């Protein structure tokens, strides 16, 4: 356009020199529309006399933004702080078609956008069996009793006031639904890591070791080898937990999550924490613990959360989440916009203890390199791994493979299916593969 648009911030007396020779000719020829634009541009220049040209540098640097030239918000504008408005796309999401009623559904954590190992409480995945409740903590009670009187000297009731007076521990643990990645047993079914692996979260939990409470009630460890945990919600969900785990001190009756109370969706005000074991055993809104001398075969260990084998038998009381890992950046449904350097990042975890090593492959598992583990690596907690990668623009298949402290190595789909078939639903810990094509698009594939 005309020269004047290139001279912002300078006002000249019109009409001298206002129009270039070409522009004068254009007016003569009857084309006046550019004049209007010229005036508009001049107006804009007056309003923002310092507006810089792109050729001089990044306008985001050269033109000071509003947040640098105005007064910000006062303290406590948001008494409970919320994420930036620019973060609205990273939220819990449902997978369409997975469940037909929201009270018995799942929302997945957006792993594709999370950092480190702690899941923000508001993004913790949800799995409810009969909807979630916001339980009044002043009316909540925990009862501990025995399936018969010989197993426990004294059945007791505790209020939240009382539980919060007891010696507490704070520990970081992952929780993974037994059905995480369950949609993928037979074939690729969902596009992103939110839906393949998002029934996974990790928090710092605070509470009382269940062992202390059982001993306070005079448990007979010789006879009582099983524990039933029961919720206070409509479903009053129940699961059997082995006494060996309780005796180890790892099982916690927790009220704290990431420094505050549990969220209602995560069992406020009390839930069981059973490290290394699938989420269904971490009974939410915990109201009762019963010690017994046999497993209970509850609905969620006799109809659901049982693993179908090719023989037609179901594995019952399957609980441990074996070593598993997944690359979260880059992952399915993402696109690498440019070639060059990337920090490939992901999560690894094991229900049997600490992660010892994570290896990453860029060629579909032909060759592997060991990734950096971000420490401290903790027992039955998520472990963040990172590895450098320069993408040269050619196709690649990214995989991660976890090894835990017992020496167990995360299996491939081929290895897993050979033993367990494709209809197990639960405990799919196969190596995840992400395919990168020339356009930079990353998609979910399964390598056998």
């Amino acid at each position: 356009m005309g020269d004047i648009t290139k001279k912002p911030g300078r006002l000249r007396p019109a009409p001298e020199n206002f129009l270039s020779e070409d522009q004068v000719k254009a007016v003569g020829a009857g084309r006046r529309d550019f004049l209007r634009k010229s005036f508009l541009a001049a107006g804009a220049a007056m309003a923002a006399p310092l507006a810089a040209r792109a050729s001089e540098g990044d306008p985001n640097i050269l033109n000071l933004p509003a947040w640098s030239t105005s007064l910000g918000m006062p303290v406590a504008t948001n008494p409970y702080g919320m994420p930036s408005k620019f973060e609205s796309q990273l939220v819990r999401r449902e997978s369409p078609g997975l469940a037909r009623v929201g009270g018995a559904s799942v929302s997945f954590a957006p792993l594709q956008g999370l950092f480190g190992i702690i899941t923000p409480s508001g993004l913790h995945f949800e799995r409810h069996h009969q909807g979630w409740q916001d339980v009044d903590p002043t009316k909540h009670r925990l009862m501990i009793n025995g399936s018969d009187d010989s197993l426990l000297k004294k059945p007791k009731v505790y209020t939240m006031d009382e539980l919060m007076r007891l010696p507490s521990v704070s520990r970081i643990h992952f929780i993974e639904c037994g059905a995480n990645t369950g949609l993928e047993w037979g074939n690729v079914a969902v596009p992103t890591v939110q839906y393949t692996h998002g029934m996974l979260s990790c928090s710092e939990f605070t509470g009382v070791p269940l062992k202390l409470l059982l001993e306070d009630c005079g448990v007979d460890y010789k006879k009582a080898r099983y524990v039933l945990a029961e919720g206070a919600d409509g479903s009053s969900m129940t699961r059997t937990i082995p006494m060996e785990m309780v005796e180890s001190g790892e099982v916690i009756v927790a009220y704290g999550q990431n420094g505050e109370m549990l969220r209602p969706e995560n069992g406020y005000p009390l839930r069981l924490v059973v490290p290394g074991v699938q989420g269904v055993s971490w009974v939410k809104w915990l109201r009762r613990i019963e010690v017994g001398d046999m497993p209970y075969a509850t609905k969620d260990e006799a109809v659901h959360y049982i693993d179908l084998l090719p023989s037609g038998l179901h594995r019952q009381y399957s609980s441990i989440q074996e070593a598993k890992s997944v690359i979260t950046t880059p992952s399915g449904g993402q696109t690498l916009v440019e070639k060059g350097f990337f920090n490939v990042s992901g999560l690894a975890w094991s229900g049997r203890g600490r992660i010892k090593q994570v290896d990453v492959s860029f060629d579909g598992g032909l060759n592997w390199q060991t990734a950096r583990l971000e420490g401290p690596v903790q027992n039955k907690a998520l472990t963040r791994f990172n590895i450098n990668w320069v993408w040269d623009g050619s196709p690649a298949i990214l995989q991660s493979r976890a090894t835990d402290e017992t020496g167990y190595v995360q299996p491939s789909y081929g290895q897993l299916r050979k033993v367990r078939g494709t209809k197990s639903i639960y405990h799919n810990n196969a190596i995840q593969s992400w395919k990168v094509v020339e356009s930079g698009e990353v998609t979910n594939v399964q390598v056998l």
Partner: protein
Amino acid sequence: MSRFSKTILVLALLGASSTGFAFENFKGVGRQATPAEVKAWDIDVRPDFKGLPKGKGNVERGNELFEEKCASCHGSFGESNEVFTPLAGGTTKDDIKTGRVKGLSSGELPQRTTFTKVATISTVFDYIQRAMPWTAPKSLKPDDVYAILAYLLNLQEIVPADFELSDRNIADVQKLLPNRNGMTTDHGLWPGASAKKGGIGNGGTPDVKNVACMKNCKPEVQIGSTLPEYARTAHGELADQNRNFGAVRGTRTLGPEAAKKAADAGTLELATKSGCMACHGMKSKIVGPGYSEVVARYQGQPDAESRLIAKVKAGGQGVWGSIPMPPNAHVKDEDLKTLVQWILAGSK
């Protein structure tokens, strides 16, 4: 081995301190539960029927109750797949004899129902009693639970139509469950004592073994499955499920058409929220002109956008008749711009 030694260490540590936590040493904390309290909450029914309440109910009564309280979700015959997976179906007379549902291994079963899986009748009683009906859990009396369970057993052809289920004969019914022999605990995923040591499970030995090979691990990469196109687009716009800054972007999966549709829906909501839709229709006049009429008038005018923004902001009168448009200073400038652009682009 390391796990074993760690367990001992933890036990030793807690053992040392637990002398301080011995029975009733948390002075003033907790109190004895009364028998009535235990009775009110201890409702679980075990596979050996400990906890089973006394009572009875027949198939006919169960049919009535099921129709009234259960059929809206489960279907009249427990067959519905609309809300939950089916309760009944999928087993044969032969399965009742063997206690193993053949369809589970043959692959003939299109979908597993409750009765193709469950090996313990106590489970079904316990669950109905504690959690059903869906919207009014724990509202059923024991006789109701017996009746509903009798009806389900009849649907499954385990008991005859004139059957009455009770606390006295439920153990006999257990012996007829089609998949009563269909469970195994011989696996490594139980974190407690092994069957050999009086528990269940194999003590934690994994069933799948991989080795951490590092170089030239296999002759070729075998792809077993790739993402089907319908699955790529079934989860909405993936671009909007990632940040729009950072190392990567979300892949745009729905294309510009769908993106426009989503944006339109958002802008319509904004227009409604801002009060525009009270006076303007999409196509025709309500109080003020319809948006398509606005488009027709301003079409082809290069400054239409800025003029309209100014008009909407300040209000006006006369262009479309004598009823004035009020000023809209409450609408943010960026929203005004979005709205005007949307109208000019042929709002939908």
